[in-house]
C-alpha cells in the first residue's frame, strides 16, 4: 500500500467523520437581509469546514424578521439557535433571561476588544447578551463636487442651520439633484429613528423622568417643523416613503447633495461598482442645533444572540465567535478589501493601519464615540437608548407616532395635528402598558 493511498484513505475517513458530525449538528440562524449578513452567508462554508457544524440560514426582511423572532422568543418556540437582533431588543430580552449570556467566550475571541459603546448597548446589568456583527452611528455624507460648486465647505461638525444652507445651495431640480435626502418612512427603525435623533439635537425627548410623553413641548414642534421645511424645500419627491434603502439608491444614483444616515452606508456609497458618485463623497458628524450640545447621531448594532431555548448552545457559541471575530474581519478584508469588512464592532479594526486608510473609518469611529445611550438628549430621561427607548412598548408606540409624522411629510396634516396625535397615542399606549 503506497503512502498516497493511505493518505487518501485517511482523508476520506476524516471527511466522512466530519460529514457525520455535520449531520449531527446543524444550527439554524435567523438573520436580516442586509448586505453584510448576506456576505457572511457566502463564507459559511469556511466555518463548516473548520468546525463540522452546518448552518441553515433563515434570511428575512427586517420587519418580518422582528415579527418572526419576537414571536419565537416570547413563546419559547425554539425555532432558531441564533437570532440576529439589535440594540433595542438585546437588553429587554436579556433582562427576561431569554438569551444565553455571552460572558464565557474564549480567550482568543477577546471580548474586551468590542467597542465599549457596543458592548454597553448589548449588555444588561453588565452581562453581554449579544455579540455585535457590525455597529453603526449616523453621520452626514455629502457630495464633495457639489459642495465645491456651491462654494461652501463642510465643517467637521456642522449645525442644522449650515445643513439647510448647504441644501439650498446644492438643490438643483433642473438636473435632478435634491439638496438633501433624509428618512421619512414610517416605522420606528426608519423615519422614527431619524426624527428621534433630530429631536435630540433640538433638545427634545420622548419622556420626562416620570414617563410622561413630551410631544406637547416646544422642542418637538421646533424639530419637526425644521425637518418638514427642510425636506419640503430641498428634499426628494415623495420622501415620506423613503427609508434607508430608498435614500441609498438615490444617493448612489447621484440624486442627493447630502444624506444623513447610518455610517455603514459609507462603504456602499464609496463602492464604485454600485455608486455613480463613489469618488466624490465626503463625511461629517451628524448635525445639531446651534447651542445644543447633543448631536443627532444614533447608535445601533446588528448582533448575534443565542435564545435560551436552544439545544445547541455550544455550536451556536462557536459560530458567534467565528462570525464576530477578528479573523472573520481579516477573511473578508483579504477577499473583498478593507472597505467592505463589517464596521463598528471592534476597537482593533480601527487600529489596523490598512483600515485607517479607508476614507470613512475615522468619521465612523468618531460618530460612534459621540453617541451616549444613557444621556441621549439635553434634559435627563428615565430611559436608555438614543434613537429608541429601551422598553418593550416602544416599537409599537414609535411606529404609530412615526406614521403620524409621515402623514405630515406627505402633506396630509399639520405639524401641530401630528404632535397632538403623537401625544395621545403615546399616552394611550403607556397607560395600556401600566405606566
Amino acid at each position: 500500500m503506497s503512502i498516497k493511498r493511505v493518505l487518501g484513505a485517511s482523508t476520506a475517513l476524516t471527511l466522512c467523520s466530519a460529514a457525520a458530525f455535520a449531520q449531527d449538528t446543524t444550527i439554524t440562524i435567523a438573520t436580516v437581509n442586509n448586505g453584510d449578513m448576506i456576505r457572511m452567508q457566502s463564507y459559511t462554508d469556511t466555518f463548516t469546514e473548520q468546525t463540522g457544524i452546518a448552518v441553515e440560514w433563515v434570511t428575512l426582511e427586517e420587519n418580518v424578521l422582528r415579527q418572526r423572532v419576537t414571536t419565537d422568543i416570547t413563546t419559547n418556540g425554539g425555532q432558531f439557535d441564533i437570532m440576529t437582533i439589535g440594540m433595542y431588543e438585546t437588553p429587554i430580552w436579556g433582562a427576561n433571561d431569554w438569551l444565553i449570556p455571552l460572558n464565557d467566550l474564549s480567550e482568543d475571541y477577546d471580548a474586551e476588544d468590542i467597542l465599549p459603546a457596543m458592548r454597553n448597548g448589548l449588555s444588561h446589568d453588565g452581562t453581554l447578551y449579544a455579540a455585535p456583527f457590525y455597529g453603526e452611528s449616523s453621520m452626514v455624507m455629502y457630495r464633495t463636487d457639489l459642495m465645491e460648486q456651491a462654494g461652501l465647505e463642510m465643517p467637521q461638525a456642522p449645525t442644522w442651520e449650515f445643513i439647510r444652507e448647504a441644501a439650498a445651495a446644492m438643490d438643483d431640480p433642473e438636473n435632478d439633484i435634491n439638496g438633501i435626502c433624509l428618512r421619512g418612512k414610517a416605522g420606528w427603525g426608519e423615519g422614527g429613528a431619524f426624527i428621534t435623533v433630530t429631536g435630540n439635537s433640538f433638545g427634545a425627548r420622548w419622556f420626562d423622568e416620570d414617563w410622561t410623553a413630551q410631544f406637547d413641548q416646544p422642542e418637538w414642534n421646533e424639530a419637526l417643523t425644521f425637518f418638514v421645511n427642510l425636506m419640503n424645500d430641498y428634499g426628494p419627491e415623495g420622501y415620506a416613503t423613503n427609508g434607508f434603502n430608498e435614500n441609498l439608491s438615490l444617493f448612489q444614483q447621484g440624486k442627493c447633495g447630502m444624506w444623513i444616515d447610518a455610517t455603514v452606508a459609507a462603504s456602499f456609497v464609496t463602492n464604485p461598482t454600485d455608486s455613480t458618485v463613489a469618488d466624490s463623497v465626503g463625511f461629517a458628524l451628524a448635525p445639531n442645533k446651534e447651542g445644543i450640545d447633543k448631536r443627532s447621531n444614533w447608535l445601533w448594532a446588528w448582533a448575534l444572540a443565542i435564545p435560551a431555548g436552544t439545544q445547541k448552545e455550544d455550536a451556536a457559541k462557536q459560530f458567534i465567535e467565528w462570525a464576530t471575530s477578528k479573523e472573520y474581519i481579516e477573511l473578508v478584508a483579504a477577499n473583498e478589501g478593507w472597505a467592505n469588512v463589517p464596521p463598528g464592532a471592534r476597537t482593533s479594526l480601527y487600529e489596523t493601519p490598512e483600515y485607517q486608510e479607508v476614507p470613512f473609518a475615522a468619521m465612523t469611529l468618531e460618530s460612534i464615540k459621540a453617541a451616549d445611550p444613557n444621556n441621549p438628549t439635553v434634559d435627563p430621561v428615565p430611559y436608555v437608548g438614543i434613537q429608541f427607548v429601551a422598553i418593550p412598548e416602544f416599537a409599537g408606540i414609535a411606529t404609530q407616532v412615526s406614521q403620524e409624522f409621515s402623514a405630515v411629510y406627505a402633506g396630509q396634516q399639520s405639524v401641530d395635528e401630528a404632535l397632538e396625535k403623537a401625544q395621545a397615542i403615546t399616552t394611550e399606549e403607556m397607560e395600556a402598558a401600566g405606566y
Partner: protein
Amino acid sequence: MARAVSTQRKALNTTVAWTIGLLIFFPILWTILTSFKTEAQAIASPPIFIGFDWTLENYAVVQERSNYMRFLWNSVIIAGGSTILGIIIAVPAAWSMAFVPSKRTKDILLWMLSTKMLPAVGVLYPIYLLFIQMGLLDSRAGLVVVLMLINLPIIVWMLYTYFREIPGEILEAARMDGASLREELLYILTPMAVPGIASTLLLNFILAWNEAFWTLNLTAVDAAPLTAFIASYSSPEGLFFAKLSAASTMAIAPILILGWFSQKQLVRGLTFGAVK
C-alpha cells in the same frame, strides 16, 4: 359562437381585448423582463423595454443565496397536500349537503364560510403556542392541516354547487339498480363531477400556494415555502429591482405555468353555482 359578425367588428374586438389583456398582464411581463436586466438597467431613465443586454446574473445570484428547490418543493407539498386532504374531507360533506339537504344545510354552509372571517393575526399567539405544544412548528404536516382548514369552507362550497347541478334522477336510478352508497359516490357521482373537482383542486392549490401569513410565521427552515423565500428579497440594501424581479419570477413561475396549462378547466369550473 354562432353569432355572425363582420370581420371589421371582430378586428375591433380583437384590438380592444388584446390591448386590455396586455395592460393587465403588463406588471408580470415587466417583472419578467426586469429580471434579465442588470441593476443599473433596471432603473434606467427612460426605462428600457427590450433593447438591453439580457443577463442571467440575477438568477445566478438568487440561486446562490438560497436553496430555491427546497422552497419550491415545500410549496408544492404544502399546497398540494392541503388541497388533496381538503377534497377528501369535503367530498362526502358536499355530497350529503347536495343530495340529502335538510333545513339546516344552508346554515351550515354559511357558517362554514364565516369561519374564514377570523383574522389570522389575532390568533397568531394561540396557534403558535398550540403548535409548540404539538411539536408542529416548522413542519409541513402542520401547515398542510392549517391551510386545509383555511380553505375547507371554499372547497365544500364549490363542490356543493357542482354536485347540486347533477340531476338527482340519475342517482335514484342507480339506487334502483342496487348501487351502494360507496359505489354511488365512486362510480357515478365522482366521474360526473370531475370537471368541478378539477377546478376546485386548482383554485385551492392557487390559494394555498399564495397564502403568506401562516406559511411565513409557522416555518423556519424545513417547511419554509416560496412565500418565505420572497421575504428575504423584499427590501435589501442598495439597488435590488433586478434581483427582486428574478426572485419574484421564480416564486410565481411554477403556479403561473400550471395555471396557464389548466386554465380551460379553471374557466369551465369556476362558477360557484353562479350558472344554472
